[in-house]
């Protein structure tokens, strides 16, 4: 790469990276630093002694933290799977509709447009209705409203991502295959889905990372209850930080959530090859 090109790379990438680094560096470093200390806001007379990795060790021994992690993994697996399937169906459908396209797409996108807390409030309102069972009083049943609310909201996001990917696929390929006698399902499997891989990858990465950090939806619907049966890891961290005011321990929890998310992202990236440095156009 010659000098001009490397300068170009700098010119193009540095502004964005500077903004991100500028805003995010201090808070992330601060959290890491806090996680190495014992810091309890309710007892300032204890001070802020350095305790090394004690907080992290405490997390590993904390039963409630493990339960929260389990709940989170369950939530991610369930919602991402359902959203992918429904999102793909919706995207394929929207792709074929020619009349009233704009209106239909807008209608499809509406659930995503409603602020999360508000959408969750609407679902709570519906599930608390006197008709039907008392969902929120049962530890297992309480998951249904949560999954429904999240799928309702996020499917349009997945659909829109996949739709954008669908629109970039050359229709000539599909035409040719159809003329060769391939059925719709086969065309879907062998032509559409492979070409859609980058969009699918983006959808999976973003949705699973988002789902891993779920907070608003569960906070509004169940608050983590009944008991702590639906508490995800970020809600637990929130509880430790803001209710118990144990900043050191809460920061360690946050760092662990972050570390897991990061590892997850790397795994997805490797698996789906989304970051392959494709060197197009040289």
């Amino acid at each position, binding site marked *: 790469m010659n000098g001009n090109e490397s300068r170009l790379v700098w010119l193009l990438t540095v502004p964005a990276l500077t903004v991100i680094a500028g805003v995010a560096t201090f808070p992330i470093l601060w959290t890491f630093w806090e996680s190495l200390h014992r810091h309890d*806001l309710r007892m300032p007379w204890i001070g802020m002694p350095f305790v090394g990795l004690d907080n992290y060790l405490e997390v590993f021994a904390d039963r409630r933290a493990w339960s929260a992690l389990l709940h989170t993994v369950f939530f991610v697996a369930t919602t991402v799977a359902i959203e992918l399937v429904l999102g793909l169906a919706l995207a394929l459908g929207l792709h074929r509709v020619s009349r009233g396209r704009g209106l239909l797409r807008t209608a499809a996108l509406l659930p995503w447009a409603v602020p999360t807390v508000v959408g969750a409030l609407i679902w709570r309102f519906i599930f*608390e209705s006197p008709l039907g069972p*008392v969902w929120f009083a049962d530890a297992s049943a309480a998951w249904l409203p949560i999954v429904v609310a999240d799928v309702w909201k996020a499917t349009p996001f997945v659909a829109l991502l996949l739709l954008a990917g669908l629109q970039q696929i050359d229709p000539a390929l599909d035409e040719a295959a159809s003329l060769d006698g391939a059925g719709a399902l086969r065309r879907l499997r062998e032509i559409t889905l492979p070409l859609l891989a980058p969009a699918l990858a983006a959808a999976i990465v973003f949705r699973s990372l988002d789902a891993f950090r779920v907070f608003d939806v569960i906070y509004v619907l169940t608050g983590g209850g*009944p*008991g702590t049966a639906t508490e995800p890891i970020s809600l637990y961290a929130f509880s430790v930080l803001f209710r*118990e*005011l144990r900043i050191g321990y809460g920061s360690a929890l946050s760092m662990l959530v972050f570390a897991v998310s990061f590892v997850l992202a790397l795994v997805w990236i490797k698996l789906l090859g989304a970051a392959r440095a494709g060197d197009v156009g040289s």
Partner: protein
Amino acid sequence: MTRRGVGLSAVGRPAAAAALALLTTVAGCARDPSAPVLTFSGSAVGLEADVLGRQFARFEANHPPLTVRLRVTPDAADERRQLYVHWLTARAADPDVLQLDVIWTPEFAAAGWILALDPFQPDITGYFPAAIAANRWQEHLYALPWFVDVGMLYWRTDLMPAAPTDFEALTRVAIGARSRGVRDGFVWQGARYEGLVTVFLEHLGGFGGAIIDEAGAVTVDSAAAVAALTFMRDAVWATGIAPATVLTWQEEQVRFAFQNGQAALMRNWPYAHRLLQDERASRVAGRFGVAPMPAAAGGSPTAALGGSHLAINAHSDRPEAAYALIEYLTAPEQMLERARVAGYLPARPSLYDTAELSEALGLDARRARAIVDRAVPRPVTPLYSQLSEILQVHLHRALTRQQEPRGALADAAEAMRGAIARAGLDARSAEGSEAP
């Protein structure tokens, strides 16, 4: 829709300038910029906003050149507390005056976020002793009581001759009402939040137990406590006098069930009284009464003491002015006005002997005072938020049948003792000692 090739300089600077201009305009246009401003953060929804506005105006007239500004916070207790924690850890100088929930004072005091009021020598004899005790930490007073809340039993006068005074009578009456077509027997706040602790506290006292005894030991796993929690659980799943939905209900849903005539008995705070009397919205106006919560043999009718108090931000620039505002707002006239307009119970016992208060509240003030006098505070300790969370989780687990009451309370007690031991504190504030 897409803006291309426009760098930060072209978009960001005008945007920042516009924002700054807007902010200074908004901030500056309301009043003389050089006048000292007191910021008050508290409850200001609907009618409360009206009465506060008037009281601030009178205060300003009496204390020129001070002006008082209201800082809006979420009214849900948890969220307001979050914001306070947020601001106070960042050592923000405003708001100067904070409205605190009764259970926050020791925590905020221990963290050094609010000022001790002793240097101002407030006259504490005029307030309910229990409310004053709840605001003490290590022998200093940190907030003045503003209004009190107590848990009460609301009962339908057309469905029963008198309010039940013990739990068995309550069950009988509730079952009777249900058999005659009333949808719910007894409704209370059973969601997993602070309200559940207050309801449990009242049942607990009714069976003769306590969360923490006089010696400072955790007694939430006592036989009385197991009996109380078992009664609550059976009310939902065995006798069926309470609908399973109470386990997701907070104050408002409970109120509406009673207000729509769907419940025979309700446990709620005094705020509901005025709303239930409103004939336009309430189907039970004129057909209900209030009474203390019932008790079993060995226990006594217990009301959880709630309410709000006013404190001074430790980093405030003008503590004397802040104290003047607190003193003004907690004066008898202001309390009476607040009772008349918004229906809140004043924190001064002397007001309950006046006919004015009964008129203002629409209920017999002496009976209300009898309940307040016997109200039981929750543990006064900086650890309360954590202890409450432990209790909430375990109570809710037992109530949703994930665990038996005995086991749940044993786990809760163990966790609470562990938390207290780790903090090196005696659970009671009066004897609160420094950490070793």
